[in-house]
């Protein structure tokens, strides 16, 4: 659906050039929710704004739905942009227009008949649950409601792609979750491709299928969320995940702290329904090894449950080896830390 090839964006001229993106490549499939995570200044905002050419790339190509946007003239680009919805951190609604008129805006651009506008706006209002607020002005709405209007406006023209520029960063945690739920619902219902950028791992973990980690203008790691989240390779990714799982110093001390006998610290990762099975308990029962839980998380990635335990096995070498072997046989991922 979206291909980004060798995308470079530089700001400034002459000797005062800053490079926001350098030779970035990215491919996003139809119907997936693709998350881009990065710190502020990493280039993620520039990246998403390059997808609909709000920022003109210095070099490289941007293909959306089989069309090379970077090659288009002004009017052709305007026509293509109507197939790409976008929502923003600060909503960017017309303050002088009612909720109805905001949602009708993209439809009026294409000279849609009045009755059709009426029908479509009503449909969008019920999709985002704002039927009762049709004649209000944005200033009369809460942040979450404003973002719902933003979503309704972005979807009114039946786009193929929805770009979300930090769409939940200005919202409180509950509202964030309700907006994320709405996005996931829309993605399923319309098979809509969603690209979102965020600095919160929580957002990626809640709804994304794939994730790319952006750092200093380049993608340092990407893949299915479960893979990247459970086995991060790059330091920046690990940092984002640490913020989410809140480990760090305390864990390091726990791992370093010696047990009375021979011991080994391992990280066990459960994915899917295995998360809720009593695998570990059964196996240690068989092998006679004791264990202490140093850290543990049971949660979900998108809608898939996962668990990650860091445990210290206490027992003789052979029994511990046997335990690890049996865990691996059960299809769990085991990584020996120490």
């Amino acid at each position, binding site marked *: 659906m979206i291909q980004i090839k060798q995308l470079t964006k530089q700001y400034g001229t002459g000797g005062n050039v800053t490079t926001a993106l350098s030779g970035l490549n990215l491919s996003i499939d139809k119907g997936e929710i693709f998350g881009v995570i990065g710190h502020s200044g990493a280039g993620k905002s520039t990246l998403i704004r390059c997808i609909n050419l709000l920022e003109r790339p210095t070099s490289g190509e941007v293909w959306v739905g089989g069309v090379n946007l970077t090659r288009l003239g002004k009017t052709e680009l305007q026509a293509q*942009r109507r197939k790409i919805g976008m929502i923003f951190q600060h909503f*960017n609604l017309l*303050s002088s227009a009612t909720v109805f008129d905001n949602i009708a805006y993209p439809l009026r651009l294409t000279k849609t008949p009045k009755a059709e506008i009426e029908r479509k706006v009503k449909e969008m209002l019920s999709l985002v649950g704002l039927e009762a607020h049709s004649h209000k002005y944005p200033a009369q709405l809460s942040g979450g409601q404003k973002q719902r209007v933003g979503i309704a406006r*972005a979807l009114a023209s039946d786009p193929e792609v929805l770009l979300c520029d930090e769409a939940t960063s200005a919202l409180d945690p509950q509202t964030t979750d309700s907006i994320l739920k709405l996005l996931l619902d829309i993605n399923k219902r319309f098979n809509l491709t969603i690209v979102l950028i965020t600095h919160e791992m929580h957002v990626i973990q809640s709804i994304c299928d794939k994730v790319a980690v952006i750092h200093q203008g380049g993608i340092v790691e990407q893949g299915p969320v479960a893979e990247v989240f459970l086995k991060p390779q790059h330091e920046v990714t690990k940092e984002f995940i640490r913020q989410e799982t809140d480990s760090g110093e305390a864990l390091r001390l726990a791992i370093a702290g010696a047990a009375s006998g021979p011991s080994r610290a391992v990280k066990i990762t459960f994915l899917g329904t295995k998360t809720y099975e009593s695998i570990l308990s059964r196996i240690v029962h068989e092998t006679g090894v004791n264990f202490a839980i140093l850290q543990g998380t049971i949660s979900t990635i998108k809608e898939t449950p996962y668990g990650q335990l860091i445990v210290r096995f206490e027992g003789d070498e052979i029994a511990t080896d046997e335990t690890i072997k049996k865990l691996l046989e059960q299809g769990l991922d085991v990584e020996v830390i120490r």
Partner: protein
Amino acid sequence: MLGLDFSQVNWNEIGTASLDTLRMLGLSALFSFILGLPIGVILYMAARSTSGWVRFGYGILSFIVNILRSIPYIILIVAMIPITKSIVGVSYGVIGTIPPLVVGAAPFFARLVETALNEVDKGVIEAAQAMGSSTRHIIFRVLLPEARPGLLAAMTITIVTLVSYTAMSGQVGGGGLGNLAIQYGYYRYDTEIMIIAVIAMIVLVQLLQMAGDRLVRRFTRK
């Protein structure tokens, strides 16, 4: 009190002068808005252009606007006499005051328009671009509606400024309340008429400002 006697005042003359002032105001404001609004929009758009040539054009237009704004109005009236004659045929009376009033007020209004447009949230314009709006759409469906309270305030300020400009036009035989005040009050020491003319102008400014403020409030959605 103060030895003033209002019984001798020629109210007919004051009525005529008031009407003249209103006509000058109405016509000059109308043309100032018609000219100033597009100039303001052009200034706003040109300042944001990615093309170097357009931004160069902005520099020139901006310079012209600044020159017109820095000429004291009383001098502008005199300097413009030949141009005024060639446009409306005469350089005196109500009609003769319109060209200098417009040339004096339109650049002022254009700057106020530019400032009002600058106040429009950049994010909203960006959202409109992302939705595939053309430049025309952005001007007429985003910029002008979003800036409406600011534009109404700019109109109010301009029209109030025009009240004092029309009074200066009195100096060169423009007619109206300002003319009356100067003719009677200054040249004939007829203080009563001067006071009435001044009060009439104060009332006029008050009414205009109140109406303007009310409109601004009516269209403010923030």
